[in-house]
């Protein structure tokens, strides 16, 4: 088992290499460089800086140097924050981002599944309609629109919650988590509802009822597991959506997470910083998908060997 696991993990490496290569190529294809700011540097300083970061080398050399460092676990320096390494910067932002992301995903799973089940238990009744309206809304309003609306309502009008910033208080995360989770809640509710409606039509649910089990028992023990399967397969894309969404949300709410470095890095052509964030997030998504595959196989006995 563990040998197979290891082999499957190794198979993920080419994906990550491709990701790094593409990001590297795209970053360098974009016009401008890290030291072309408005306030022009003296020629000598620029040459010196470029030499220090190997930017004077041909691109393929730079690429190989980057990969070489990476193989030693070194994400390289940041041009913008010369006193700190990319790894340090990401390490500083990661706890905030991880907290935000995992809270948003958990909220999306719990609320999304609960809403989907409620809707499926009362098809075409008001409960179902309400959930579907919410789901369509959650999917059609992008979170960069939703976030300011939430701030306007909860912070500016009602003064109930802080509008942004981060000093470690839980209520500061409430709006960002909500804004990040809502589109996922919508998708998960729809998935759950559809799966639930399908499962409840199966002959084995009829058998469960023929045994005299209570409706609660039928839903929780007999229907829930197969309903989990499509939801779990969606967790991979959901994680990707949450990570990319968090880049925007952290920016809007002024949270010092990884996403903020990503935006700053991209604006300043801080190649190492951007590559580092892409690599970390890419690894997270790939690992998440991997875990989802394992979980999926555990839940469906027919998929096990």
């Amino acid at each position, binding site marked *: 088992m563990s040998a197979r696991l290891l082999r499957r993990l190794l198979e993920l490496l080419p994906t990550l290499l491709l990701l790094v290569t593409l990001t590297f190529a795209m970053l360098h294809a974009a016009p401008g460089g890290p030291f072309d700011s408005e306030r022009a540097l003296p020629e000598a300083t620029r040459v010196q800086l470029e030499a220090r970061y190997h930017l004077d080398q041909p691109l393929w050399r730079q690429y190989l140097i980057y990969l070489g460092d990476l193989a030693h676990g070194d994400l390289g320096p940041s041009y913008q924050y010369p006193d700190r390494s990319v790894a340090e910067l990401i390490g500083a932002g990661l706890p905030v981002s991880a907290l935000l992301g995992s809270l948003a995903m958990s909220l999306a799973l719990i609320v999304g599944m609960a809403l989907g089940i409620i809707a499926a238990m009362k098809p075409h009744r008001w409960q179902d309609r309400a959930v579907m309206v919410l789901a369509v809304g959650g999917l059609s309003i992008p979170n960069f629109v939703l976030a300011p609306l939430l701030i306007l309502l909860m912070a500016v009008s009602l003064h109930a919650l802080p509008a942004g910033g981060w000093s470690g208080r839980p209520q500061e995360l409430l709006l960002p988590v909500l804004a990040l989770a809502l589109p996922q809640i919508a998708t998960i509710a729809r998935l759950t509802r559809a799966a639930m409606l399908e499962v409840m039509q199966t*002959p084995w649910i*009829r058998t469960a009822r023929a*045994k005299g*089990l209570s409706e609660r028992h039928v839903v929780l023990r007999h229907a829930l597991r197969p309903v989990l399967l499509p939801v779990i397969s969606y967790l991979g894309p959901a994680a990707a959506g949450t990570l990319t969404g968090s880049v925007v949300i952290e920016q809007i709410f002024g949270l010092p997470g990884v996403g903020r470095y990503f935006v700053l890095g991209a604006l300043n052509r801080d190649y190492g910083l951007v590559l580092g964030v892409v690599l970390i997030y890419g690894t997270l998504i790939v690992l998440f998908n991997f875990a989802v595959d394992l979980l999926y196989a555990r*839940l469906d*006995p*027919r998929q096990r060997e």
Partner: protein
Amino acid sequence: MTTAPLLSVEQLCVAHRTPRGDVEVVSGINLQLEAGGTLAIVGESGSGKSQTALAIMGLNGPSACLTGRVLFDGENLLTASPARRRALRGARIAMVFQDPMASLNPYLRIGLQLAEVLETHRGASRSAAWAEAARTLDSVRVSAARERLNQYPHELSGGMRQRVMIAMAIIAGPQLLIADEPTTALDPTVQAQILALLDELRRDRGLAILLITHDLGVVSRLCEQTLVMYAGKLVESAPTQQLLSRPRHPYTAALLRARPSMQHPPGLRLDALPGQPPDLRQTMPACRFAPRCRYAQPDCADVPLQFERGVLCRHPL
């Protein structure tokens, strides 16, 4: 003096509300079954056999509207509370379905699916319920019963799955077993074994069996009495041997002719019943079978019919 039957269905109608209007799929069925007795319902597919069985279970689904009476041990199930119906279901009235693969939950272990019946109805402890589950599997002759408990349905053969379904139905000791085409999905040798098992359960446990099938060969082995349904109506009722040897309704006779039998040389075309059952949404002639009946007379289509002397026909054979 006669005792009240275990099951008595009176004027049962089942209608379904559908987007294309209401459709009555069972129209005024009457039947009686004594404790420990056997009764078969036969008919082409779509004639309303399963809907009749599900009506006894109370499992026709949310679109169904039921009228008439279903008396079980003197109690009208159609007016019983949902909680009361649940208490009877699985405990005193059990049902076995056609497709044993689809009818078992593929995600749960066999043991759990058996044991939960006892946990629900008897408040049995988990360990007691699993022990009883092993004993019940053993009694329906599932080999290596203890190991089976930890298996999933897909690990079992079709015949084994149907034995598990039967074990699940009888585990709480019901008085009535409804078997809806229990052998249709199985190959012939396994079919015979399952029928023998049902017969044995009837003898040993005094289980009353309501067997639903479209296979007349199955009926003759198991049931004393047989009902024939056509397009939601009862068209003939007779002791099985009499029905097979001297059918009175032309539809029963046609079913018998359509039956493959040993006498037919292989390759010879069977005398299959021509035409289609009527569309239940359309208005139908007084005798619903008249359009397909080779003995039909001009009066068959419009003179209203009564179920008399075991047959619903103006010109019985």
